Each structure stands twice: as structure tokens, then as C-alpha cells.
């Protein structure tokens, strides 16, 4: 039933988008149409292949988000119309679909991803990417957000779940100071790994990544750690570090000021421009109303991150508050679906799935809260709706991991 409704939705969205914005060139519409057809084709294949139909709900929701991503990409195409597929969302979509099927098949039918060496390489590779980005940018004068052409955010989304699952699911053979009440060494290693990763993210100024990795690692730590005192100590340390960074790190302090007193920040010379991203929605909510102002009402030249970090603002302002609300409701079902898994899988698979679900959950939560002014602005996009090929492809990998795990049988 969800498949035909999705078809109606995607058709409606396509017609709505292209009737709202007209370009001289037929290229953007053709790219949009092609992308939509690709999504439908991929969904059809999975519909036929997935006998238990357990993967279908999540895939349909992901497809809904991808359709919205296509619409937003079309909406902003005029600003940078390009014939090169790799420059547009449709090109990313092709990569996403190919990667999805490869990863799905690998996870579903093999156990290659569990090989110790591969997981160690993933963990080490992530550290290399994070520190390498900073070093190579210093040498080449390029951006330190990228390494090897891929955003370090994307690298983290890809590698962290495997590394975390590997470390957490290790056998507890020894403990710090030999005391069972203390941290087991595998958990200690995970903490150390996260701290080293943090340091690298601080060097790269990737505040959003610190937030997401920190939140995910915290939840995993709390689930795995048995000692109440250790948990308290960890909480106090994290809170202390957060307060210290809010007071001493200039851009964190600015974000804090903007979050707590956005109207007052707008009056400050230093913060006025940054506060605008928070205040815009409050100012224009009345005009947007429930049905939105119409696709294309906000020019990206006015507000550069409307198709990336502030896509929720675009949804509420242009597409309608009702649609944005439905997207959030679907996100809730998506996270629920991500947390479902067949019983009896091994610890590594379970923690891999949990980490995947946590990453998605925190991405959606932090993006929504930032856009609504309920949290610090964090520079994080919404899965698949925001443009960003590296991140979207890596999120598709995580989706494929979950779909693959859904098809796995219990260990005998």
C-alpha cells in the first residue's frame, strides 16, 4: 500500500515543483525526472527482492526524503545549472543507488564487514582522514573539511559505526586496574578513540561532527558501562568540557549567545549576521502560515545554506508547515524502523545497527532543533533532503547496512 501512495506523492511533488519554478533550459526538469525514475526503479527492485517486506517501510521513507531532496535541488538549480551529472543531486542519486545495492548484498549475504582488519582499517582510516584533512589543507591551502574529495563528516558517518561496534562488542577480557567495577579495556579504547577523534575535529573546526559523534558515543557508553560512578564522572567531565568550550571557544560562545538570546544577538554588530539564520523563521512564520509561501520564495543568494544546513527552514517556509510536520513524523517512524532487528544476531551486528540508528536520530534531531532555534546552530543537514553528495552517500551506506542486517538469520 505504501508504494502506490509514494508514487502519487512523488508525482504530486514533481508537478508542484516544476509548476512553481520555470527555467529556460529543460535540463533541471529532465534531471529531476530522471532522478525520480531512478528512485522508483530502485524501490521496485527492493520491493520484489525483499520477501519479508521488512525493509520496505524504511526504504519508502528514505525515498520520500530523496524525492524532497530532488525537489529542493531543482528549486536551487537555477543558481548553478549544470549539465554535468556529478554536479547535481541526480548524479549523487545514481551513486547512492549503486552503493546501496553493493553494500546491501555484502551485509546480507557475507560476513566480510566483521573482519577485524577491515574494522581496524576503518577506524584508522577515519583518524587519517580527520588529521590528514587538516595537514593537507595547511600544505595545499585547501579546505580542511575535505579529505580525498570527501567531506570528513562523510568519512565519519561511514567509519564510526563499524569502529564503535567492533570495539564495544569485543570480549571483555580485562579491565582497567584489574577491577571488574572499572571500565573494561574495550570500552576504554573506544573512549580514547573518540577523544583522539574529537581532537582532530576541533583542529578541523567541525563542530557539527563533534556533536554527533559525542552524542552517539555517549549513548553507547552509557548502554555498555556498568559502573554508576564511572557514568557520573563521565557526565560531569562532558558537562564541564561543554561549559568550558561555551565560555572560552569564541565561535561556540557566539552560538550559545545566539541560541539563548537571538533577538539581543541581532542587535549586536558581531552576531547580527549569524543570528539571522535563527530569527528568519520566527519573523516569517506568520507569512508562511500552514500552507507555505510557495516553492522558490526564498532565493539562495539571500540565504546561502537553504539547501543544506537550513533545509528545514526551506521546508517550513516554501513547502508548508504541514509538510515539514509530516517529514518529522516520518523521521520518527524511520528511527523506529532502524531500531528493529531480527532477534538472535551477534553482538557486533546489534551494536552496528544501534550506532547507525543513533547517528540518524541525532542528525535529524540536531538539524531540526538548530533550524527551529531550539539548539545551537550546528551546520548539519537533514538526511537526503539536504544537498551534499559525500554525506548522502554515506547515509545510504548506513541504510544499506540496516537493510542487510534485517535479512540476516539468527546465529546458530
Amino acid at each position, binding site marked *: 500500500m505504501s508504494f502506490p501512495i509514494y508514487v502519487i506523492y512523488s508525482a504530486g511533488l514533481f508537478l508542484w515543483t516544476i509548476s512553481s519554478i520555470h527555467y529556460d533550459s529543460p535540463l533541471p526538469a529532465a534531471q529531476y525526472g530522471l532522478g525520480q525514475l531512478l528512485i522508483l526503479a530502485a524501490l521496485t527492485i527492493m520491493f520484489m527482492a525483499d520477501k519479508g517486506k521488512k525493509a520496505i517501510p524504511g526504504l519508502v521513507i528514505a525515498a520520500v526524503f530523496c524525492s524532497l531532496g530532488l525537489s529542493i535541488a531543482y528549486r536551487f538549480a537555477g543558481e548553478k545549472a549544470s549539465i554535468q551529472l556529478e554536479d547535481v543531486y541526480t548524479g549523487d542519486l545514481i551513486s547512492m543507488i549503486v552503493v546501496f545495492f553493493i553494500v546491501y548484498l555484502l551485509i546480507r549475504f557475507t560476513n566480510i564487514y566483521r573482519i577485524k582488519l577491515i574494522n581496524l582499517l576503518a577506524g584508522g582510516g577515519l583518524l587519517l582522514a580527520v588529521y590528514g584533512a587538516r595537514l593537507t589543507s595547511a600544505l595545499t591551502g585547501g579546505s580542511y573539511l575535505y579529505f580525498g574529495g570527501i567531506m570528513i563528516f562523510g568519512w565519519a558517518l561511514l567509519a564510526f559505526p563499524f569502529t564503535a561496534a567492533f570495539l564495544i562488542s569485543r570480549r571483555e577480557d580485562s579491565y582497567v586496574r584489574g577491577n571488574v567495577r572499572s571500565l573494561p579495556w574495550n570500552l576504554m579504547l573506544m573512549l580514547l578513540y573518540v577523544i583522539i577523534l574529537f581532537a582532530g575535529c576541533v583542529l578541523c573546526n567541525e563542530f557539527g561532527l563533534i556533536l554527533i559523534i559525542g552524542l552517539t558515543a555517549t549513548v553507547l557508553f552509557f*548502554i555498555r558501562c556498568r559502573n554508576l560512578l564511572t557514568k557520573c564522572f563521565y557526565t560531569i567531565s562532558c558537562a564541564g568540557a561543554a561549559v568550558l568550550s561555551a565560555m572560552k571557544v569564541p565561535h561556540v560562545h557566539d552560538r550559545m549567545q545566539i541560541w539563548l538570546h537571538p533577538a539581543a544577538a541581532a542587535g549586536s554588530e558581531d552576531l547580527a549576521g549569524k543570528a539571522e539564520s535563527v530569527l528568519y523563521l520566527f519573523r516569517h512564520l506568520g507569512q508562511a502560515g500552514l*500552507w507555505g509561501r510557495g516553492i522558490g520564495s526564498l532565493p539562495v543568494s539571500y540565504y546561502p545554506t537553504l539547501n543544506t544546513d537550513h533545509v528545514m527552514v526551506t521546508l517550513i517556509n516554501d513547502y508548508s508547515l504541514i509538510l515539514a510536520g509530516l517529514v518529522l513524523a516520518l523521521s520518527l517512524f524511520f528511527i523506529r524502523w532502524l531500531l528493529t532487528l531480527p532477534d538472535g544476531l551477534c553482538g557486533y551486528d546489534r551494536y552496528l545497527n544501534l550506532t547507525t540508528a543513533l547517528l540518524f536520530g541525532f542528525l*535529524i534531531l540536531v538539524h531540526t532543533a538548530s533550524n527551529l532555534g531550539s539548539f545551537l546552530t550546528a551546520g548539519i543537514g537533514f538526511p537526503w533532503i539536504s544537498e551534499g553528495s559525500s554525506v548522502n552517500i554515506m547515509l545510504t551506506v548506513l541504510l544499506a547496512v540496516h537493510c542487510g542486517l534485517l535479512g540476516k538469520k539468527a546465529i546458530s
Partner: protein
Amino acid sequence: MIFYRKKHYRVRVLTAFAAALLASLLLFGLRAADGSCQTPMSVGQVILSAKEYSLGQVQDRNGTVVLQGKGKETVWTDPQVRSSLEPVMGEDPERSMLSRSTILANCPWVFGTEDNRFRLSVLLNPFSSRKGEDVRLTIDAGLQTGIAQAVEASGFDKVCLVVSNYKTGEILGLYGNIMQDTFHPGSTIKPILAASALSIDPDLASYIYNCADKNHNFSTSSGPFRINCIDGTEHGSINMTDAIAYSCNGYFVSLLQQTGSTAMLKELEKWGFDTVVHYPQFSYTDHSFLGSSRQDCDYLLAGIGQANAKITPIGMNMCTNAILNHGQMENPRWISARGRDGRWTAVDGEGSRQVCSREAADQICKMMLAVTEKGTGRSFALPGFAAKTGTAQKSSESGSLSEKCTVWTTGGLTDEKMPYSVTVCLDDVKSTTTSADAGRLARDILKLVLKGEAQ
């Protein structure tokens, strides 16, 4: 005897996620409802908004529609009202929003900036069109028509005109770019100087000046500086009343020297000279007396409304209103209410400040009556009409004096039951045009106001 508690992370993680999402939505909702984050729109945002919305209705003080939007177009109901109001209406937001010197720039809600579409009617009818809210002005459309006709009949090209109620500060009619165009005030600055001088030293009311040839050389730090009265007239021994009535330049230059520049400049700041004053409903070009100059001769020339002395017609009208209103300058306003679908809310713009002592203002007001009774304003006398005329020479691009002038008449009715004032400025006129021409136009306008009042 034994029980293993399964760890349901799914429920806990999902509950925490849902709770956090709900909390962020709640915080957003509370902030939106509270209104504390609803800062004013930027100029660019107002312009964008205007493209999506059709203009709300612009009504005059009696509810007559003057201007309204029909789709993307704006429609004026009366061409004569249009000709008089168009320069200050600002219906094109791209031009008017950059400064607050037009009417609509000060009521952006007509462009739909404060539209709230969280109404049941919009929820049930998503197809409802976007229309800005309405605004009610203090301006009288009937008076505007009369003003436009009178100005057309006068034959003058560059006219600026303001009619207002000096008790409330409401602008009842206007013509020309009264907010931004500045002119030398000429002799119309003299009542302001006199009121300032009396505020500094009330005894100066009995100051006598001997307007003779030898007394027209005024000492400055760079030597004597000569300022004649108009056409070289010598008024002889003259008091303040006659000095205002006959517009004696020497008297007022001498008066400036009596009071001392520091004290005088400080008093003039209260009137808005050489300072920045903000009004809730508009911004205008501030008036200047000395400006950035520190030269004695400029100071003396400013005393007769030349050199760096410059003022807008609205500025002159405000100063005149202060004299007529016992020294209290009411905040001028031209917007009285905003509304939608016939429901109106008053717009705040009231406020006032005391610019000189009551006694000083009342004295000067009486002296201004003498202008129309026996002085330079005899030709346009009206019972109870206290006025002051002024003629200022314009300078050419090279800085030398040109043959063109700016002529003024500013004044109002002293009867507080009819608290109306008018300021007329005719710019770029030849020397054959006198301030009496401006005065006659001012009188005609006042008669229109009185006629409207009687009806």
C-alpha cells in the same frame, strides 16, 4: 525464582528521541507565541514580501480610500491626490524602503510583512490571496485635493507644503518632498532664534537694536563682517516685536552676539538643529544651523537663515508648531491606525518635548501676529494668523550667490480651537517672487482647512 530483564534499547532510544524532538518543537512554539524573536524585517525582506502580496488599503483620516493594491498593481482613486502625495507615499518599496522618509516605508504591514496566516479561514481555504494590511493616515484626502489644485493654480514648479495640527502633531496635508529636501530658511529662522534667546535670558525681550548703517558691521575673530537688512533698509531703533514683524537682519545678528554662541547652539539643539532626532513614524533630514563650520561669519549668517542653516519643510513646520503650542514640540505623525477587514488598532507615535520655555514661546507667538498685522505678511493677513516670512538666496554650484531664491511663509492660527499650522516653501524662484506669494498660498490653504472644519 529467576528472571532475566531484557534490555529494550529500542523503546528507550525512541522515547528519548521523541521527547527531544517534542521539546525542541515546544521551545520553538513558545518562542514564536511569545513574540520575543519577532525582530523587524530587513529592507530586502520587505521588498521580497511586497512582491508576493498585493498592497493593503491606504485610507485618509476620514476612511476614504486613497490607494490600494489590485493584484500586483497599485491603484490611486484620485489623480489630484496622487500628484500631491505620490512623492512621499513610497508605493515602490525598492525605492522607498532604504530611508524612512516615505509614508509606506513606515507602515510596512501594508506590504504584508506582518500577515498572520494562522487563521482558520486560511487553513480552510489555502487558495486565499495574499493581501497586506490596511493603514489609516492622518492626512485628509479632501484637503489634499484642495492643496493640489491650489499649487497648480499658483503656477509655481517647486513647492513644498505642510499642514498640521500643532496640538497633536498630526500632518493633515502635504505637498512635495517635505522630509528630505532641505533649504535655507532665510528669515523664518528668526522666531526660533528669538525663542531660544528668551529661554537663555528672558530680559532680552526688551533688547533694542539701532538698525543704522554703522551698526551693520559685526565683529568677528577675523575682523568686521557686514550683514545688511534686505534692500539695505535701515529700521532705526527697533525692538524684538518689530524686528520679527519687519524682519530686521541686523537685530538678530546682534541678538546672536548678545547671547553667546555656546549657549545659543545648546538651545538650538533642543529644536533639532545640529543634532540627530528620531521620530517613531519617519526619518527626515536633520536641520542644521552651524553644521560643521566653526567660522564666526557662518554663525552670523546662520542667524539670518543663510550659510549652513538648512531645514526641511517638515522641520520648519515642527518648529513653528512648537512656538504656537507654548514651546511644546509634538512628535509629527502621519499614520494613525492599522487594520484588517475593518478592525482598526491605533498606531503609537505620540510624544513631545519642551524646546523652549512657555513664556518665551507665547511671547514670540504674539510677535508673529504682528507680522501679518503690520509687517511683511500684511498682504496675506487672516484673523489670528501668526506667521513669519523668509527669503533665502541660493548659491550656485561654484558657491557664489545665484539669482534664485527660496521663499517661505510659516505660521498658524493662534485660536486653540482651530490649532492648524501651515508651512509653504517655494524653491528656485526668481527675485520677483517674494515671500508674500508663499504667504498667500499659505493663507489659501488655511482657508481650505477652515472650510473643511466648518463642513
